[in-house]
């Protein structure tokens, strides 16, 4: 590593980014000092173990990453908007589509879902916090360290440029000699450990911390979806851990796993990547199914149709998700028997997914539907996602896939699945649960405006890609000539991308506008909703429930409202809470530096950072802080202040 290669040079766009990073950091530092907010930041956020605050931090990061990934997307669309564009060169284009993919899946969709999970799950099951609050903070800070490590790559050392799938031999040290793919390996590794710990934490939370009376088959559908998602997480992420480790060994220590000589097998990477990669798709999409189930049921004023078939279909999806991975590389060279097997398992997934679609439709049937912003996203999801699903079945047929493979048709397909399936869901969930966390709703008028922009522009952006793919435009090509005839449809797609950007700007503006002008909600239940989280005052006090609710059936809060029965008749007693701790944050910093030094193969600093990690973990083990108690008077006062009544 030469020092003049340390910073990325020669690109005006990157210089601009460097300047804006420095300016933004200075502005934040200055602002914190000027308004004397350092102590507040440390006490209330950096050291917090409160699941709601950790959730808010996840979502904040996800929104920032959505911006970063969105800028990447706009740059790609701009570069391909017309034939022979000179906006980006080939190398820069490669870096942009790589970071777009990684960031959108791993640093936007997943943290957004984790944020909603963190905020909602303990509230939905009537718990005070997650099972291991400190571990939850560690998960967040590991994710954050990984995300930051990945994001600095484009100014320090250079971004990864081998696609989000980082296929070998392209991603090997021979063909990708910059440190870019070291960043890929280490950033994903660090945030992946955080993800695994989140998975463990939430399974224990859901299995062990439910309020009395809430049997498994009485849980809200979002809780079910998260439980099954976490099961997929804990078995899929170890595969990624190993794949990334082997990648790092190949690139840094000269091992021969995925090389072209000495017995190495480049295809093994693709295999391992997708053994994790396909379940990962369901990790992103199952929580979305849960969110839509909550919203559709709430705004149809009906209980969810086919509850047990919903649960069963998710269990089947979780099992099948581990049996389909080879459909990502039908053209690699395995025989017809293999492709046939994986074709059938892939198509089989359409069955449980179809069951879910019909259940949502039957929930809507004869419901008193109110068209709120979250409901609009959910309603738009159904037809758009179905298009994505049907094109998925087309791709699942191995013989036909030889035509579609690596074309824009595939790109259109997975955007049609992931944008309604994941992005619409998290935005809908964001609008839906926002008043729970902050005590006021997002403005409906602005919300609907943003929705229409996003929903229409999404189709304008991605529908043309189906036709471009069928015409033969391959994915990841940075330019094309006018004779190909790809120009007009690409231009149309660019127009859609601008519309999407406008939609997201309105969405963010809505947060600002609503913070200032939207009336505050005193009821805690602005949507007249069904699950337990709405029985708490908003914003939710740190202890969540003054008394633990007793659950007598599904939609417990709804029936307690309708039958005018309180959720619990017990007296308030003192509540045990975990203490804040700064160690998870410090551990995150140590992991960041460990990753950073390893990226550049600086061994001595790496060893020092590694020892620091071990020491911090040891001090955590020796910690004997057992938390603190909130006295009864304080709880009564808080409840009175938030609700304006006596409990």
């Amino acid at each position: 590593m030469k020092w003049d290669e340390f910073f990325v040079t020669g690109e005006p766009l990157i210089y601009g980014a460097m300047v804006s990073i420095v300016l933004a950091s200075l502005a934040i530092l200055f602002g914190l000092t000027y308004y004397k907010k350092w102590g507040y930041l440390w006490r209330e956020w950096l050291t917090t173990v409160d699941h709601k605050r950790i959730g808010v931090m996840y979502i904040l990061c996800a929104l920032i990453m959505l911006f970063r990934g969105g800028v990447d997307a706009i740059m790609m669309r701009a570069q391909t908007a017309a034939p022979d564009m000179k906006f980006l060169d080939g190398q820069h284009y490669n870096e942009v589509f790589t970071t777009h993919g990684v960031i959108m899946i791993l640093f936007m969709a997943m943290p957004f879902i984790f944020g909603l999970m963190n905020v909602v799950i303990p509230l939905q099951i009537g718990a005070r916090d997650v099972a291991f609050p400190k571990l939850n903070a560690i998960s967040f800070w590991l994710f954050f360290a990984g995300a930051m490590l990945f994001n600095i790559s484009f100014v320090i050392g250079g971004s990864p440029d081998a696609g989000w799938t980082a296929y070998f031999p392209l991603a090997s040290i021979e063909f990708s000699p910059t440190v870019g793919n070291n960043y890929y390996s280490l950033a994903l590794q660090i945030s992946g450990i955080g993800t695994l710990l989140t998975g463990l934490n939430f399974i224990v939370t859901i299995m062990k911390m439910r309020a009395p009376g809430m049997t498994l088959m009485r849980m809200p559908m979002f809780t079910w979806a998260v439980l099954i998602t976490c099961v997929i997480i804990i078995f899929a992420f170890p595969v990624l851990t190993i794949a990334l480790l082997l990648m790092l060994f190949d690139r840094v220590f000269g091992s021969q796993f995925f090389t072209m000589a000495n017995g190495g097998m480049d295809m093994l990477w693709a295999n391992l990547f997708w053994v994790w990669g396909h379940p990962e798709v369901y990790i992103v999409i199952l929580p979305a199914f849960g969110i839509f189930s909550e919203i559709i049921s709430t705004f149809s004023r009906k209980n969810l149709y086919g509850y047990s078939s919903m649960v069963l279909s998710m269990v089947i999806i979780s099992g099948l998700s581990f049996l389909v991975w080879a459909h990502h590389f039908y053209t690699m060279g395995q025989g017809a028997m293999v492709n046939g097997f994986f074709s059938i398992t892939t198509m089989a997934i359409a069955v449980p997914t179809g069951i879910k679609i019909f259940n949502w439709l039957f929930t809507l049937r004869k419901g008193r539907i109110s068209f709120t912003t979250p409901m609009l996203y959910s309603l738009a999801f159904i037809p758009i996602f179905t298009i994505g699903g049907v094109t998925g079945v087309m791709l699942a047929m191995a013989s036909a896939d030889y035509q579609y493979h690596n074309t824009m048709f595939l790109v259109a397909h997975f955007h049609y699945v992931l944008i309604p399936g994941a992005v619409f869901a998290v935005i809908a969930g964001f609008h839906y649960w926002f008043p729970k966390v902050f005590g006021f709703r997002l403005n409906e008028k602005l919300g609907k405006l943003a929705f229409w922009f996003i929903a229409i522009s999404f189709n304008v952006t991605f529908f043309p890609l189906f036709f471009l793919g069928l015409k033969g435009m391959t994915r990841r090509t940075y330019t094309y000539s006018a004779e190909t005839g790809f120009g007009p449809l690409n231009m149309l797609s660019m127009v859609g991308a601008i519309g999407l950007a406008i939609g997201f700007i309105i969405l963010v503006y809505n947060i600002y506008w609503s913070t200032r002008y939207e009336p505050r909600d005193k009821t805690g239940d602005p949507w007249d909703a069904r699950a337990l989280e709405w029985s708490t005052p908003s914003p939710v006090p740190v202890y969540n429930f003054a008394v633990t609710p007793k659950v007598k059936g599904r939609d417990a809060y709804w029936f307690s409202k309708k039958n005018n029965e309180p959720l619990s008749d017990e007296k308030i007693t003192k509540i045990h809470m975990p203490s804040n701790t700064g160690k998870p944050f410090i551990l995150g910093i140590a992991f960041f530096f460990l990753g950073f030094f390893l990226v550049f193969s600086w061994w001595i600093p790496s060893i020092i950072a590694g020892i620091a990690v071990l020491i911090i973990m040891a001090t955590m083990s020796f910690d004997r802080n057992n938390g603190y108690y909130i006295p009864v008077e304080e709880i009564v006062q808080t409840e009175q202040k938030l609700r304006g009544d006596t409990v």
Partner: protein
Amino acid sequence: MIKQLFPIKHVAGYISSLVLSAVALVVLLDMPAASKMAILFVTAILQASVQLMLFMHVGESDNKKSIYINIAYALFVGLVTIFGTLFIFVWGWYS
């Protein structure tokens, strides 16, 4: 004291794990490859069960159902990964 510190269950588990390791060594003798693999599978699985049942007290926890499901799911994913990969690269490879 000795009896108290060395319960029969643990001693039996220890001896059986040593015996099973010794039995597995017969694969170094001359016999058909298929029977060798069968011996390795049987002894390894028995050994793992000895650890799980006798030493790890898998059945004593009040979550034993969840724990069994968890191990079963882990084995499902692990075996699918191993044999699926072999299916793709060895048995089902185009030739």
